[in-house]
C-alpha cells in the first residue's frame, strides 16, 4: 500500500503544479486586466480615472511584470496562504472569501451525504424489486428529478414557501449572524436553513445515483456466482451485502473525485436564486469582471478538491477491490 500511495502522490503533486499554471493562463487569457477594464468603464461613464492610483496598483500587484514572473509570484503566494488582492472588492481575497469557502464546503458535504443516504436504500430496493409498482413509481420520480434543473426546483420552492407559509427561505443563516464570528447559535441557524439548498442541489444527483446503482446492481444480481449462492441456500440479505452490492459500488467510489467540484460549481445558479453566501456567485462574478486573483483562488480550490477526491477514490478502490482484471495485460 505504501508504494501505491507514493505512486499516487507522485502523480498528484505535478498535476497540481500543472493545473495552477493552466488556471493562471486561463484567468490571464482575456485581453487586458481588471484595471484596464476599470479604466474603460470609467471612460464610458465619463468619469475621470485616477491613473496614478491605478498605475500604483498595477505596480504593487505585479501586473506590469512578464507573464512567468506574475505566475511565480501568484503560485508562491498561494503556497504561503496569500491568495492575492481582489480589485473589485478592494480587499485581500482571504477577507473577501471569508466564511464562504467553509459554507460552500458545508453545503456540498451535506448534499453528498443527503444524496448517498437517500439514493442507496432506494437504489437497492429498486434493483431487488425490479418492475414492482414501487420500483416503477421510484423510477418515475427519479426521471422527474433528473429532468428538473436545480435552479427551477429552487424557484418552485421559493414560490411555494412564500405562497403556502408566507416565509422567505433564502440565505443560509439568520441575518443577525451574517458576518459575525462562529458561535453555537450561528451553527444552529445554518443547520436550520441548510435542508432547503441541500434538497434543491442534491435532488438531481440523488436521482442519477439511484438509476446507476439500480443498473449496476441488476447486472451483478444476474451473474453466475449470485445464482450459485442462492442455490446453496445463502440468506438473501447476506448474499446481497457480501458481493453484488460491493461490486456495484465501485463506480461510485471512482466518481468521488468528480463529485465535490461538480456539487460546488453546479450550485452557482442555485446560490443566486436562494441567495446563498457560498462561493458559486462570487466565482461567477469574479470571472466576468476579470478579478484574476479572486477567480484564480476559487479555480485552484476546485482543482485541489478534484485532485484530492481522485486520490481518495484511488486509495479506496485499491482497498475495497484488490482484484486484477483477468483479461488485463501482464502485471509489472
Amino acid at each position: 500500500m505504501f508504494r501505491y500511495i507514493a505512486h499516487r502522490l507522485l502523480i498528484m503533486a505535478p498535476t497540481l503544479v500543472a493545473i495552477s499554471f493552466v488556471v493562471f493562463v486561463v484567468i490571464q487569457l482575456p485581453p487586458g486586466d481588471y484595471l484596464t477594464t476599470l479604466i474603460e468603464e470609467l471612460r464610458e461613464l465619463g468619469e475621470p480615472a485616477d491613473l496614478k492610483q491605478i498605475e500604483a496598483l498595477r505596480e504593487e500587484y505585479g501586473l506590469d511584470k512578464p507573464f512567468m514572473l506574475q505566475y511565480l509570484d501568484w503560485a508562491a503566494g498561494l503556497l504561503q496562504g496569500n491568495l492575492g488582492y481582489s480589485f473589485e472588492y478592494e480587499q485581500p481575497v482571504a477577507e473577501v472569501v471569508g466564511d464562504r469557502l467553509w459554507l460552500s464546503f458545508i453545503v456540498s458535504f451535506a448534499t453528498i451525504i443527503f444524496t448517498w443516504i437517500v439514493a442507496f436504500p432506494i437504489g437497492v430496493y429498486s434493483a431487488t424489486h425490479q418492475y414492482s409498482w414501487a420500483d416503477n413509481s421510484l423510477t418515475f420520480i427519479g426521471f422527474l428529478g433528473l429532468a428538473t434543473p436545480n435552479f427551477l426546483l429552487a424557484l418552485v420552492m421559493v414560490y411555494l414557501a412564500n405562497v403556502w407559509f408566507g416565509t422567505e427561505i433564502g440565505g443560509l443563516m439568520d441575518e443577525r449572524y451574517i458576518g459575525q464570528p462562529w458561535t453555537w447559535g450561528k451553527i444552529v441557524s445554518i443547520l436550520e436553513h441548510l435542508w432547503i439548498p441541500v434538497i434543491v442541489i442534491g435532488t438531481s444527483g440523488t436521482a442519477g445515483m439511484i438509476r446507476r446503482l439500480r443498473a449496476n446492481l441488476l447486472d451483478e444480481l444476474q451473474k453466475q456466482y449470485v445464482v450459485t449462492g442462492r442455490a446453496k441456500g445463502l440468506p438473501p440479505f447476506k448474499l446481497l451485502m457480501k458481493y453484488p452490492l460491493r461490486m456495484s459500488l465501485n463506480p461510485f467510489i471512482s466518481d468521488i473525485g468528480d463529485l465535490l467540484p461538480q456539487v460546488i460549481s453546479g450550485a452557482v445558479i442555485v446560490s443566486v436564486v436562494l441567495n446563498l453566501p457560498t462561493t458559486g456567485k462570487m466565482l461567477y462574478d469574479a470571472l466576468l469582471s476579470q478579478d484574476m486573483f479572486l477567480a484564480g483562488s476559487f479555480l485552484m480550490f476546485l482543482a485541489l478538491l478534484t485532485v484530492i477526491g481522485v486520490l481518495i477514490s484511488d486509495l479506496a478502490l485499491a482497498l475495497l477491490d484488490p482484484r486484477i482484471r483477468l483479461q488485463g495485460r501482464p502485471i509489472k
Partner: protein
Amino acid sequence: MTIHRYPHETLRNDYLRAGAGLLICAPLAIVAWGTSFGMWLFLGMSALFAVYGLRSWLRSITEYRLTGDGLTLTNTVLSSLSGRYVPWTDLNKLTLRFFPLRRDRSEGWMQLTVRTAHVRFSIDSTLEEFNAIAKAALAAGLRNELPMTQATLENFQALGVDPAHMNESA
C-alpha cells in the same frame, strides 16, 4: 533452495520516483515555509518520498530464500534485519492484492502477504521469480486450510496459479 531479489531496473525506477517526489515537494515546502497548512503538507510529502527512497535501498540489500520448508529474509548489509523466517507449517494468513495503475485495472502490480504469529512479509510481484514464491505460499495455505478471500483466489488465478487445480493435486 532458490534466492530471489528485486531487479535493478525496478529499484532504479523506485529511486527515480523517490528523487522526483523529493525534487518537487521539498522546494514547495521551502517556499511555503512559515505557513501552517502548505508547509506541513509538503513537508509530509517530502518525508514520505524520503522514506520511499530508504525503503527502496532496503529492498536493494534484501534477499528472499525459498525452500520447501519456508521463506527466509536475508539482509546483506544490516544483520539485525536478517534471519526472519516464515515456516510454511506456521502460515496463518495469506493474501494476494492487486494495486492498479490504471482505472481499467489493466496495469499494476501484486503484493503477496504471508504471515505467521510473529513474522509478516509483504512481497511485491516485481521480485524475481515471484510466481514460484506465490505458488509455494498458496500450496502451504491450502495445506493449512487457511480462509482466503475471493479476490486473493482470483488474483492467484490471474498469475497462472490455479487454486482449484492445486487443491486437487494436494
